[in-house]
Structures are given as structure tokens and as C-alpha cells.
């Protein structure tokens, strides 16, 4: 169940953004991606999650081991918090939503339509969805946006729990989560520099 990424090149809008990214993450470990705005964190994560094709390179795990959570959470504003979670648990064939509700302290909000939640409450709901998928590899793009300190701590504990259960996590974040078993990868070194080719080929570059 180790996630090995080998010489991955990812592109955005047909243009290579990161080149030859290699790393491996063992079960129980988290990897934190770091780098300035626009370096390509989102692009890399979407590629890992199978939402866009890589230019080249290998990812050792199949896409259906991965659960992805991004800036937008796939929350339906007219459904209640409970209905939102139940739907995803049906789709992913998991049995219960209770651990997720408990972990993110959503119990009080269960019957509230998701559209009425504040920014941070919405975010918590989005993260709770991850637990409901029951998948081993979590791919998280700036998960703590809008969360207050309490909620960040809550989230930290959830991640620790997921890792302790043999899961993996890959996160892009600008703040420090204080995870105990986390590697960190600085992406600045992998910025793609494409060379100008005279005999331009299919990629037109």
C-alpha cells in the first residue's frame, strides 16, 4: 500500500508546470507539499487523484484508493448536513457516517441545510466527507482554509487517526499543522523549464 510517485510531470493548460517529481509515502505517513503560490501544488494533487492526466511518470496506486478534497467541497446547499454525508456514504458503499460526524463536531448541525453554514462549518463538512469515503489515501488541497484554531486541532487529530489506522495523506498547505509523522516536500526545486525547440513537435513547444 505504499504510494510511490516516480518522475511525474504534470501540466496545466497544456503546459508543463512541475517536472520529475518523485517521492514515496508509506502507510501511516503524511506528506506535506510546500511551495509558493502558483508553483503547481493544486495541479500535482489533481493529477495524483486521477482528475487530470500526467504528462509522463508513474503513480504506484490506482485512483480508486484515493479520496480528494479541494477548495470546493461538493456540498449541496439545499440538502442538510446529514443528507450530504449520507449520500456520499451510499456512493462509496460505507456503512456509517457517525465517526465522521463525531470527529468534526457536526452533531449540532446535522439537520441544518448546508447552505446556511458559515465558511468554516462548510469546510468541516467537506473534510468529514473524506472519512466517509473509507479510502486509504487522502489528497488534501489547503484543507485548513477558513478553519479556526479549534477546528484545525480537530482536523489534526483526524489526520493522526487516519495515519494510525494505516492510511496515507498528502496535503498542500501554507500553515503548519504540527503532524507528528509528516514528511515535507518543497516543490520549488521541480519547477519545469521547457526548452525552445526549433523542430517543434506535437506539443507545439
Amino acid at each position: 500500500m505504499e504510494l510511490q510517485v516516480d518522475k511525474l510531470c504534470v501540466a496545466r493548460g497544456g503546459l508543463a508546470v512541475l517536472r520529475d517529481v518523485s517521492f514515496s509515502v508509506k502507510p501511516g505517513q503524511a506528506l506535506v507539499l510546500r511551495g509558493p503560490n502558483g508553483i503547481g501544488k493544486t495541479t500535482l494533487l489533481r493529477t495524483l487523484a486521477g482528475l487530470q492526466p500526467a504528462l509522463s511518470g508513474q503513480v504506484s496506486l490506482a485512483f480508486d484508493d484515493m479520496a480528494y478534497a479541494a477548495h470546493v467541497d461538493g456540498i449541496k446547499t439545499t440538502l442538510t448536513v446529514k443528507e450530504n454525508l449520507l449520500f456520499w456514504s451510499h456512493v462509496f458503499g460505507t456503512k456509517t457516517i457517525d465517526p465522521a460526524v463525531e470527529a468534526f463536531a457536526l452533531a449540532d448541525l446535522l439537520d441544518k441545510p448546508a447552505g446556511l453554514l458559515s465558511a468554516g462549518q462548510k469546510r468541516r463538512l467537506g473534510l468529514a466527507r473524506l472519512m466517509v469515503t473509507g479510502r486509504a489515501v487522502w489528497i488534501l488541497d489547503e484543507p485548513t482554509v477558513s478553519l479556526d484554531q479549534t477546528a484545525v486541532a480537530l482536523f489534526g487529530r483526524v489526520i493522526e487517526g487516519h495515519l494510525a489506522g494505516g492510511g496515507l495523506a498528502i496535503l498542500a498547505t501554507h500553515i503548519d499543522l504540527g503532524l507528528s509523522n509528516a514528511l515535507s516536500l518543497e516543490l520549488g526545486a521541480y519547477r519545469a523549464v521547457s526548452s525552445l525547440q526549433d523542430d517543434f513537435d506535437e506539443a507545439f513547444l
Partner: protein
Amino acid sequence: MASIWEYANPLKFMRTTEAALPFIGWAAALCLGVGLVWGFFFTPDDFRQGSTVKIFYIHVPSAMMAINIWVMMLITSLIWIVRRHHVSALAARAAAPIGAVMTLIALFTGAVWGQPMWGTWWAWDPRLTSFLILFLFYLGYMALWAAIENDDTAADLTSILCLVGSVFALLSRYAVNFWNQGLHQGASLSLDKKENVADVFWYPALVSIAGFVLLFVALVIVRTNTEIRARRARALMARERLG
């Protein structure tokens, strides 16, 4: 023997076609000139249709081209889907506006011809109607290209649209036939039915058809190469911005 797929390399394609372009261009001008001048000035009037028969020399070639350009787009779209040669997708993109203009010409000349012949500019005849639908397909195809920013995505989507659209275009052709028997005369282009049209009208029409075909080839070359360059320019600019 070098493989034909070599020309899938944009640069090679551009070099080869641009070398051939002047010849094709002048041949197109020549054929068009000869065919149309011959048709317009030096053919007799038809005993029934009078001088309107002269519209024949533009109506028929443009109508043929309108259909054949769609077929060409279908083929290049398939090549893109199967082998993913960018030039192929761009050629389809380049051809679409030409096809649309050809359809427009066929529709217009047909309408103008219809007024004296059938007493109406427009009738919901199957041939005419399916041409109108074809025109809509061209419009939709071009609109889709224009609406999508990412070139590869646009190429994928438009080629699938072209495939599905072709099936539905055939279906509508059949449906329209079912719906209305129509006024328009049947195809007389197939060789065995040539007697439908007298030779005096026929030869200039052939030249004119050749002219339309050549003009199309020349235009496609120019436009495809433009698309290739535009695409490279976009890519380079994006790269520049990336620093």
C-alpha cells in the same frame, strides 16, 4: 517509403504544404476563372430554365463541397481521436468555416434559383432542409471550438461532436425525406445518370467543380498553418508568462 504520418509533424506539414501552396492556389484561380467565365458567358440558356441555368455552375460545386468538407472533417476528427495528431484536429478546425461558407453559398444560390423555378425562395424540401441542418451543425461545431480555452480539450470535444453529429445528420436526412417528398431534383452527378445534364452545361461545371475543390485545398492549407502557428504562439506566450 516514408510513412504518411511523418506529415503529422507540424513543421514538416507546414514546410511541405507551403511549398505546394502557390501551385494549388494558382490552379484554383485558373480553374475557377475558366469554369465560371465559360459557364457565365459561353453557354446557351436552357429551354425551360432560361438563363438561370447559369447558377448551376456555382450551386452544384458549392453544395458538393459543403457535404464533402463535413466528410473531410469527420475523417480528420477520427484521425485525431485514434492517433492524436494535432495537425489533424487543427485541419478540421480550419475547414469548418470554409464548409459553413460553402453551405451558405449553396443555400443562397439555391434560394435565388428557387424563386424563378418553383415560385418561392424557400420550400421545406428535404434537400434544402437537410442543408439548413448541416449549416446548424457547422455553426455548433465552430461555436464549440470558440467556447473552449484549452486546445486539446476543444479538439477532443469537437471531434466527438463531429462523430455524433454525422450520425444524426444522416438520421435527419432520412427523417426529412420521410416527412416531405420535395421539389428538388435528384442527384444527377453519378456517371451513369449523366444524361440528365447536357454536355454543354456539363463540361464547364466540371471545371468549376475542380476550381472549388482546389480553392478549398488551398484555403485549408493556409488556415491550418495559421492554426498551427497560432497554437504555437499561444504555447510560447503561456510559457513566457510562467517565467
